[in-house]
């Protein structure tokens, strides 16, 4: 029994002697990277990596001291390399500290780099042992570097601000929220092409640059092919059933040019592949519920006719938006961003095998897609009609 002492001694001795503290990184030896941008470098074979690094001394520690004070909470490092890993390694030329990646919030890919394919740029993040998969991945209009030059309204660290921004505008169905996981999953699955958030830096008052979410970036395979604006993005989201909330503006049923906005409560969609005259076609069933948001026309909208007409108008808008997105994808980009191929594969695995080869080139552009929208309005809010109404 007294051998326990010996065992413990062995244990601790072993631990302390053999483990010469290999993986030890004290907090003050780390450069905590909050966001990364990837661009093409001047040298066409190389990648330029922009890392936004937090400056911890400016971010707390002893309260009341430091914090604010005008000093910037982040600093930028720019390196180049042949691969992401290589570029990341080169950071140690600039920083006296070890680059620490796991808390990275956003990965911004420059437009040009995205056109050459994003798979090689994403490999590094998926391979790491740290929790990266819920990282936001997005495409910047222009260069990723410029994104980090902009400031956030509230957050000291703009990367954190952008991450929150994407979450918010994704919620409002203004863009496709794309985490690393989603992108990887889409890239790996046959019959789906990824769509990523697109952001840009714009000039705002006081000569400051601010970040704006600007629709989505469409990929074919892993290459960027084009953009979807906000309404086309929502068209895409209607079809894939990812709309969570947002507002639809329709014309007032009284015939004048006045608007009524409808609040989206709930939306879901079903993509149903069917066999139609020996060919496979897709039927999309979109189911939307909404509330009356506000109205600018002075009539009573809560009458049954008006109510139904609002529902019809809502359906029409949704149909238009989806059809626009569909047209863009089928004719202009020729890439299956809706995952129609994947649904076909699930239902008709054998037929899919024949179609898979030329799906993006032939199958998808010629695919017959019908969109049916069921639209419902549920509640008018807490007032029934505006007080000026007739």
């Amino acid at each position: 029994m007294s051998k326990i002492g010996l065992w413990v001694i062995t244990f601790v001795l072993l631990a302390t002697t053999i483990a010469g503290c290999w993986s030890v990184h004290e907090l003050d030896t780390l450069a905590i990277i909050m966001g990364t941008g990837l661009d093409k470098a001047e040298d066409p074979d190389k990648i330029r990596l922009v890392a936004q690094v937090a400056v911890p001394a400016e971010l707390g520690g002893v309260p009341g001291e430091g914090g604010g004070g005008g000093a910037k909470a982040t600093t930028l490092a720019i390196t180049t390399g042949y691969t992401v890993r290589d570029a990341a390694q080169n950071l140690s030329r600039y920083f006296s500290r070890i680059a620490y990646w796991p808390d990275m919030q956003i990965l911004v890919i420059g437009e040009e780099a995205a056109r050459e394919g994003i798979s090689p740029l994403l490999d590094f993040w998926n391979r790491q042992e740290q929790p990266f998969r819920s990282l936001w991945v997005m495409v910047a209009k222009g260069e990723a570097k410029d994104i980090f030059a902009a400031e956030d309204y509230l957050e000291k660290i703009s990367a954190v601000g952008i991450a929150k921004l994407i979450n918010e505008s994704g919620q409002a169905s203004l863009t496709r929220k794309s985490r690393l996981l989603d992108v990887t999953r889409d890239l790996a699955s046959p019959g789906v092409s990824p769509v990523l958030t697109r952001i840009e830096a714009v000039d705002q008052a006081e000569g400051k640059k601010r970040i704006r979410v600007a629709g989505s970036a469409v990929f074919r395979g892993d290459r960027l092919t084009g953009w979807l604006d906000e309404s086309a993005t929502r068209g895409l989201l209607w079809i894939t059933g990812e709309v969570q909330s947002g507002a639809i503006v329709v014309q007032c049923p009284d015939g004048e040019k006045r608007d009524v906005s409808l609040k989206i409560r709930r939306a879901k969609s079903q993509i149903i592949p069917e066999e139609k005259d020996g060919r496979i076609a897709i039927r999309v069933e979109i189911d939307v519920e909404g509330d009356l948001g506000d109205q600018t026309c002075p009539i009573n909208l809560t009458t049954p006719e008006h109510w139904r007409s609002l529902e019809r108008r809502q359906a029409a808008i949704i149909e238009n938006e989806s059809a626009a997105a569909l047209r863009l994808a089928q004719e202009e980009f020729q890439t299956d961003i809706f995952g129609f191929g994947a649904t076909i594969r699930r239902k008709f695995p054998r037929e899919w095998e024949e179609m898979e080869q030329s799906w993006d080139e032939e199958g998808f552009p010629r695919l017959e897609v019908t969109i049916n929208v069921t639209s419902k309005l549920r509640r008018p809010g807490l007032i029934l009609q505006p007080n000026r109404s007739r």
Partner: protein
Amino acid sequence: MMENEQITLPQLTFLWVWGIVATGILYFPTTISRHVVEDAWTVAVPFFLAFGAMIAWLHGVLGTKFSRMTLIGICETICGKIIGKFLGLILVLWFLFVTALTLRLVGEFVVLTIMPETPLIAIVLLFMVLVAYSVRHGIEVIARTGEILSPVSYVAIAVVVVLVAKEARFENLLPFMAQGWGPPIRAALTPVSFAATTLGALMFTPSLNRPRLLKLSLVLSVVVVSTAGLMIESMSTMVFGAARREIMFLHFDLIRLIKLLNIHLGLQSIFMTVIICGSFLQVSLFYHLTVVGLRQWLGLMYYRPLVTPLGVVIIALSVLLFENILEIVDFMDKFLPAASLTLQVGIPCLLLLGARVRRL
């Protein structure tokens, strides 16, 4: 003479659950992804369950038939001194190999996921000191440790599955059986070959308190494993879809996804804890089997003196066995089933046949 130890059947069940699945949680999804993606869950439930239960039942039958002796004793009784000794040696060496293999699997996992800069040997060494300490205390202590760890670990795994359910997309499971029966069965062979290690339970049948229920206990552990496998496999496919082919430790990756209350909460550390606890039990179990088997084979009285030197051999072997992790996965996928099934199903079948022929 066995050391005077008694383990109960729930303890045996818990032990074998870990014996089959501890490191398997990490590696089975990887080997399975090589063959099937959408149908990965079918590997767990019809196929693994059926084959695993059959094999466990076979071992149970053999064990209850000769409940007074250990596997080595059974070999010698049925096949006579010389052939029996030979079979016994093969089995002991096999379990030695399995111990080293599992030890290596744990080590690789720890290095790859949480201690990337630490050499494998340091991890393996520390782990082995721990395991050797528990093996010296005997199967009873290992079993009890298993009893106390298992409920906690199950809950942890279930919680993970529930938390990740938000990311799951059911349609990723379709199409169903597009590739036919071959690939899922082939994929099931790796888990089944681990399930076949239930043969090792016969090394300590004499210390069971109710040996008659051995069959039930072994089959039950296979059932538990298959339900866990069903959860994990279906969840991995539902979350990752086709991307699961690309991922090394699927389950670990699942946990990396969970963001509770918008923070990562260190869930992967909890998962890692569960894995280390489970594989501790697994390695201890196999190590103990090997030591006890070796003691039997040499006809010695005590196994304790053999523990430390055998530990050194196992550490050395575990480092020696494979060059890199790809070899490990390849081996587990391709050659492990063949070897395991030949030795752990073939030999018991032969033994039962021999017993029938010699009317024992």
